[in-house]
């Protein structure tokens, strides 16, 4: 599918999707969205661009390989589990802190948010990995 329109469109749509995804991730705790939706959206964006060009190219343009995303996601999830044990005596307990960021105001950050980020990365990795494998181009290192 090397249609020019699609290629041009994909460039924008792709970034649009990624931005959407990040917003979904960030706002997920308060508005529709969250790690799953965000991760799936990013995956969709990469798939979209590879439909426009080809999968190999889309893959090369990735900064982190799918398995990297998976590992990153699992690690983040694991890290989000720990603070609860040490600070609240329960696994997975939410630990919150608020920080003040200029222009955005007070933001509450907590381990559930970290957990959501982990899910986000893991889902990206999973989507990409299965997609690339289906596209039959993936090589292990």
């Amino acid at each position, binding site marked *: 599918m090397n249609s020019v329109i699609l290629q041009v469109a994909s460039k924008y749509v792709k970034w649009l999707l990624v931005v959407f995804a990040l917003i979904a991730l960030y706002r*997920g*705790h*308060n*508005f*529709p*969205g*969250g*790690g*799953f*939706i965000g991760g*799936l*959206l990013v*995956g*969709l964006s990469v*798939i979209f661009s590879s*439909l426009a060009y080809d999968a190999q190219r889309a893959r090369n343009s990735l900064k982190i390989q*799918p398995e990297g995303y*998976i590992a990153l*996601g*699992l690690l983040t*999830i694991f890290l989000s589990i720990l603070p609860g044990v040490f600070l609240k005596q329960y696994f*997975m307990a*939410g630990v*919150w802190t608020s920080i003040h960021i200029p222009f955005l105001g007070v933001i*509450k950050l*907590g381990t*559930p*948010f970290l*957990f*959501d980020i*982990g*899910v986000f990365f*893991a*889902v990206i*990795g*999973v*989507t990409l*990995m*299965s*997609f690339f*494998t*289906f*596209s*039959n181009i*993936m*090589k*292990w290192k």
Partner: protein
Amino acid sequence: MQTLLLVYLVSAFLPFIFAGKLKKAIPFFLAFVHFGAFAYFFSKIERIGNGDILRETIPWVPQLGINFDLVLNGLSIAFALLITGTGVLVFLYAHAYMKSYKNLGVFYFYLFLFSAAMLGLVLSGNLIQLFVFWELTSYLSFLLISFFHEKESARNAAFQSLYLTGFGGLVMVAGIILLGSVVGSYSVSDWVVNAEILRAHQFYLPGLMLIFVGVFTKSAQFPFHFWLPGAMQAPTPVSSYLHSATMVKAGIFMLALLSPILGGTSAWTYTLTLTGAITMFMGAYFAITQTDIKAILAYTTISSLGVLVLLLGIDTALSVKAAMLFLFVHAFYKAALFMIAGFIDKKTGTRDWRNLGGLARSMPITFVFAVLASLSMAGLPPMLGFLGKELIYEAKVQSPVIAPYVLVLGVAGNALMIAVALFFLFKVFLGKAKNQVQIKVKTDWAYIIGPGILALLSLFFGLFPAFLGETIVEPALISILKRDYNVELKLWHGFNTVFFLSLFTVFLGFILFYVAYTRDSVLVKWRAFNQRIFSVRFVDVFNNLLKGFLSFSKRKTELVQHGYHRFYILTIFLVASIFLWYQVYVTIGWNLDNVFTLRPFYVSGLVLVIIISTIFSMVSKSRIATIITMGVAGYGIALLFMYYSAIDLAITQIIVETLILVMFVLILQRLPLFARLSSKTTRLRDLFIALSFGSAMTVLALKSINVNFNHPISDFMIENSYTKAYGQNVVNVILVDFRALDTLGEVTVLVVAALGVFVLLKTKKT
């Protein structure tokens, strides 16, 4: 006693520790252990004779009533002496006999462990403990019989013996548990106390019969007798031990143990006397037509076991006395004769009497012992066997129930035994020398010492029976009868019915022997006759049953596990529909409050679109159309979620649907077109099943909607989502905070699935 059993257990492992030159000393050492045990029991005779009972209890699983109850009373000491005493001789004999074979360590290990198990069995004061040892003897004898395991016949015989005795054991334990549930204990002494209750209980008959099955299989009673002749595949020392003092005597021990508890009823008496009498006659009848001398001996063992069962079945003081005496009689002569048979086998290389003859000249001492043992077997004076037989006749004559039939069978059986004994002597030892001793055996004495001692014991006790009678048989009898009883044994009883019966039997036996001896053709014809009349051999029946069962199961398995994947699914959904409809039917009390309405129409329209695209996807022949309509249905469901205010759900559903569609399209290019593979009837059938399941689910859904809602959990979540978890989107808060563990598992599923896809598609086929 526990120390003793422990010593046995530890000593059993010695064959593996002894190495090099010490290896030869193993049997001596083990015989010595047996001797030590024998001496130990012997030293206790007096105390036991005075009515003492030695008891040791080690709890094992007390909650289930399973304990190690070691009891030494008159009954168990009699058996223990027999086991250890014979054990000494068997191991000495084995030293000579087994020399030329390999894997001796394993052999002695099995054999010694076997004797330990047997000893444990007779010392058991708890029936489950007894069963444990019972099973151990079964399994160990399996290993012993299959010792020459490269012979198929040995494997088969071992399998048969294990299968029958194992089966009997399991059935017996069911009986024990059944009766145990009446008493609430498995301890023999508790059973004795509650004997009256047991005999009156409705479980008595079934429990008794179950236990009898165990006893009959173990003690080779008709119709389970056929494994015993097969068991001669074992090395001869094993046979002589198995047939005389151990294994088959376990059943007898069990009967003796239970007779004060369960005995005395007509069920007990009739079953045992009948079975015993048939077995007794049949064993003797078949013994005479055998050609292998070990087989002859095996059949006479069956006959003797029949006698023992019969006597315990008659269940009078006299008959039990006869049984206890005959136990010793049989053990002495049977062990001796088996050892002699093994010796002959070693010397001449054959066990077929048709190839043997005139051995008296080359093995005179053996001949003397053989004569003594055979006379004892035939029940002729002055041997112990004569005493035994007299007592048996006496018991039979006085037996209260079916004396005439028992007597007829008894006389016939005994006459046959006399004939067999004489025949054995004359054919093998006298007459023309057919087969000279070919094989030189270095240590003749080691072969003869065992049978020699046993044969001399038979003679000695025949002449001076008082010791045996008063110190061993009497305590045993007392512990069986549970009352005092004075045992006096005499060789000469005077002219009475029994004496004339004996005389008649001897006369009959001699005639039989004479006929068989002088005319070879008689036995040949007899054998042919037997083969024609009793064309059904039990071994074959067993094998055929087994074979039939196996092919039956193979067919059934192929029927169930046929390999047609669709039918597996079909079965599952069929079962599910039946279940669900049944449950719907049972819980019919449901009333629909919901009114059928199509409002709002746009939702109804959406549902209609989903339904139509689903059906289209079902029947379409085009792959693309199928997949696209499937997608439409998926998106439609997402919109439904949206309508019912599940925003996150709708978004997820849409993205997931898209991803699945993309992947479908990706692999679709490589796949073949749909082919219409199934016929119209198949499709109709499938549709019917699908419909029955689908409609059941519809009903379930309707019912579930109808239930009152009460959601304490989600109310809590809604209330605390913002205040405690700092999130406005409750669904997301649930996912990452309230129920984060679910999400953790979910991510794991995704990761594993992705890696699985990768592994599956990356690797080449192997």
